[in-house]
Structure formats: C-alpha cells, structure tokens
C-alpha cells in the first residue's frame, strides 16, 4: 500500500496521464471525407476552354509579358472561363440627355418595389433550374429581394444594414446563363479559386463612370475599370448551372478606406464560404 499523496503530488500524477491515439485512428481517418481527392466537375464548355487554355498558357503568358494592354486582354479572354474581357480599360461615349417628360407616380414605384420582394419559394418555382440556397450567411445579412428573369435565371439580394448610412449587399445569381456576356475590364485580374473542389473565378473591381456635361448639353461619359473598388465577385459552374456571387455596398468605398474592418464587409474567404455552403 502506497502512502497517501498530497495535493501537489496528485496534480503531478494528473499531469502524467497522457493517453495518445493509436495509429489505428489516423489510418481510419485516412478515408474521412476531408482526405478524399476532389472531383472537379466542369461543364462541357468549361472543359473545352480549359483544355485550350492549358495548351496556350505558356504562349499567352510570354506574350502578355512583352506586349501592351490589348494583347493582355486577348490573353485573359483565352484564360477566363466565365467572363468576357473588354478590349480596353476605358470606354467613352456621348449622348444628349433628354428632358424629363413625366414623373413616375409613387404607386408605380411602390408596386415595382413590392414586386421585387417575392418569397424565395416563388423564385424557386419560377426558375428553370433547381436553385441552391446558401446555408451559411455572415451575421447580419438577411434576404431582401429577388426576381426571376425571362430565361429562368434567379437573382437574389441579401443585405446588411450598418445604421442608416451604409448598406451592404450580397447578390447571388444562378441559372443557365447568368455569366453570359458579363464584361470586365482589360486590366481586371482574374484569379482562380476552388469552391468545394470546383474551379471558379474571382474578380475584384467594377466599372466606374465619370460624367461631364458640356455647355451644349452633351454628356460625355468615361467608364473605367477599377480594380480597387469594394465590389468583388465569384463565378463558377456546376452541373451545367452557372453561379455568381457579388458583394457590394451602397457607397463606393475603395480598399484604402479601412474596409476590411467595416461591419458587414465580406472578404474573398467569406464569398467562398457562402458559395461552398450553397445546397
């Protein structure tokens, strides 16, 4: 029979109890879902484009290193699955602003607003594809509005309100052709990302317009692609359905405005988390 230990001895004994899992646990967990290889699924168009992109990748990179913006644009066009790359960073056009001829009645505006707030069930019923909903939404975001277009594509908006001043929006688009003709600037940076193992594309930036009204009433508009704006978005495709997730706010902040710390601001990681939670 051993001597009764004191409290400090009991503490020392407790610290010495250190059970360890056997290799059998680790061997068993080798077949766990997170250790399985990803199955990458591409729609037919994406597979074709990816093969073409892979073949041309080295050539394009070399070319884009030595030539100017339009050539880089061509290179991006070949590399991007989901976006149409504009040949330029800027677009300019002029028009004469028409005089307002009528005031839209308040009830028409109200009816329009109301029509933009159908329940998600209605959107799903009108969609041409089986829509997916995010199972994860960052704190504070709630469903705000949505609609289904004539092609059966579904557009949903979730919003986050920071007091009365700033509103932030998460837009989720899904359908057969939500990415069709979506144009980004020649200087936009397309980044490949993985969404549950499926390759998607991420772009930060948007077209920003400067408007100058001449004395003769002509309005000159210059639209320039800006990579440093708050707006950013993801696109991917799965089982023949294309998806886009946009984040933007009611103000045109840039990345120098302390955005990462702003309430409701969504990062690329947030967008991927939302995308991966859609089911």
């Amino acid at each position, binding site marked *: *029979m*051993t001597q*009764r*230990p*004191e*409290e400090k*001895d*009991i*503490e020392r*004994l*407790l*610290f*010495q*109890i*250190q*059970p*360890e*899992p*056997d290799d*059998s*646990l*680790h061997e*068993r*967990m080798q077949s*766990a*879902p*997170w*250790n*399985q290889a*990803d199955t990458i699924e591409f729609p037919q168009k994406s597979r074709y484009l990816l093969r073409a992109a892979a073949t041309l990748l080295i050539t394009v990179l070399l070319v884009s290193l030595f030539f100017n913006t339009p050539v880089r644009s061509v290179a991006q066009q070949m590399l991007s699955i989901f976006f149409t790359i504009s040949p330029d960073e800027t677009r300019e056009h002029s028009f004469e602003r028409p005089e307002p001829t009528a005031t839209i009645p308040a009830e028409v505006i109200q009816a329009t607003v109301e029509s933009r707030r159908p329940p998600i069930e209605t959107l799903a019923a009108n969609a041409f594809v089986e829509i997916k909903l995010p*199972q*994860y939404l960052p704190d504070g975001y709630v469903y705000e509005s949505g609609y289904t277009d004539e092609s059966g594509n579904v557009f949903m908006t979730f919003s986050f309100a920071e007091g009365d001043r700033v509103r932030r929006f998460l837009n989720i688009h899904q359908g057969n052709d939500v990415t069709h003709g979506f144009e980004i600037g020649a*200087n936009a*940076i397309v980044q490949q990302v*993985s969404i549950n*193992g499926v390759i998607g594309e991420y772009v*930060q930036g948007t077209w920003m317009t400067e408007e100058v009204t001449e004395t003769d009433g002509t309005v000159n508009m210059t639209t320039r692609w800006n*990579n*440093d704006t708050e707006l950013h978005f993801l696109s991917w495709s799965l089982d023949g359905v294309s998806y886009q997730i946009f984040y933007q706010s009611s103000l045109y902040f840039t*990345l*120098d405005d302390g955005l*990462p*710390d702003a309430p409701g*601001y969504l*990062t*690329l*990681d*947030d967008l*991927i*988390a939302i995308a*991966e*939670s859609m089911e």
Partner: protein
Amino acid sequence: MAKNITMPDIAQQYISKSAFASLYEHTNRSVYRYVYGLIGGSKQEVEDITAETFLKAWDARKRFKGNMQQATGWLFTIAKRIVIDRWRKRKVRPQNVNLDEMLVIADDATPEERTTIMEQSRVLVSMLYDLPDDKREIIVLRYLLNWSVNSIAEHTGKKPNTISVTIRRILQDLRDNWSDYQEGE
C-alpha cells in the same frame, strides 16, 4: 499600378478539405484525451467517439467560424454530445486501462518510484471516474489537456475564480478520500 489588396485577419474557417485536415492534425490528440477523460472506456470506444466527433464536425463545418482554441472547444462540445447520447445511462468506469501506455514517467525514475507512480495512478484514475461529470471535465481540461484556468472558464461559461476554487476542492477531496479507494482496490 494595382494596389495591394489586404485581406482582414478574419477568424479561421475549417470549410475546405485542407483546412479541416489541418484542424484534425492539430486537435485529434486533444479530442482523444478529452473523450478518454469523459468516458474512461476502452481504447476502441475512445477512438470510435473521437472519429465520430470529427465526422460530425465535418458535416457541421459551415456553421463554425473561430480560431483554433474555439475550434477545439467546438469539437469538445460535439464529443460531449456524442458521449451523452451514447453513455447517458451507463456508469463511466475505466475499462481495460493500460496505464503503461498513457503514463509519462521520467526516464530516470527508479523501479521503486515507477511502481509507486503506477499504483497511485491506478487509484487516481479510479477516483477520477467517480467524480461528477462536470468536475471530471474540469480536471480533464486542466491536467490531461493542460488548459489554463481562463480557457476552462471561457469554455464552461464559469468565472475563472469559480474554476480555481473547484479545482482546489476536487484535489482536496481526492486527497481526503485516497485511503478509502486504496483499501477498496
């Protein structure tokens, strides 16, 4: 020239496979020890519950966001729920415990010292599993997992002072009841 895009220092999410695999690498030993501390079952049972804990966590990963400490606490909560579901009506007792495998004894300990530690540990483990579940959990977190009092307080939702006092009282009780258990061996 494009400006650098600075991503905020957000809490880690364990949604991707690689991130979850890393979480498993960092926490499997802690979860195993925690489960062992809760049920004192056979190695196979402890391993089963540890594995089930990670599989359930994988299914629920999209709902969790936090740092590594919070992730460990989250895994413990899942493990505890499994244990409660499976073991609610079953008295926890150490079964087939091989103390040789789980005791860390100094290499320079003499054979006599080694024997004493083994005997004392056998008594201690027996006493440990007679503690109420909440007290045993605190002891497991403090000693088997080497958590700080503040971390235990955060995980259990109690005040640090309460945790300190509880630990002190448990140690006193273990000491005071030692002889009874030794005679019962």
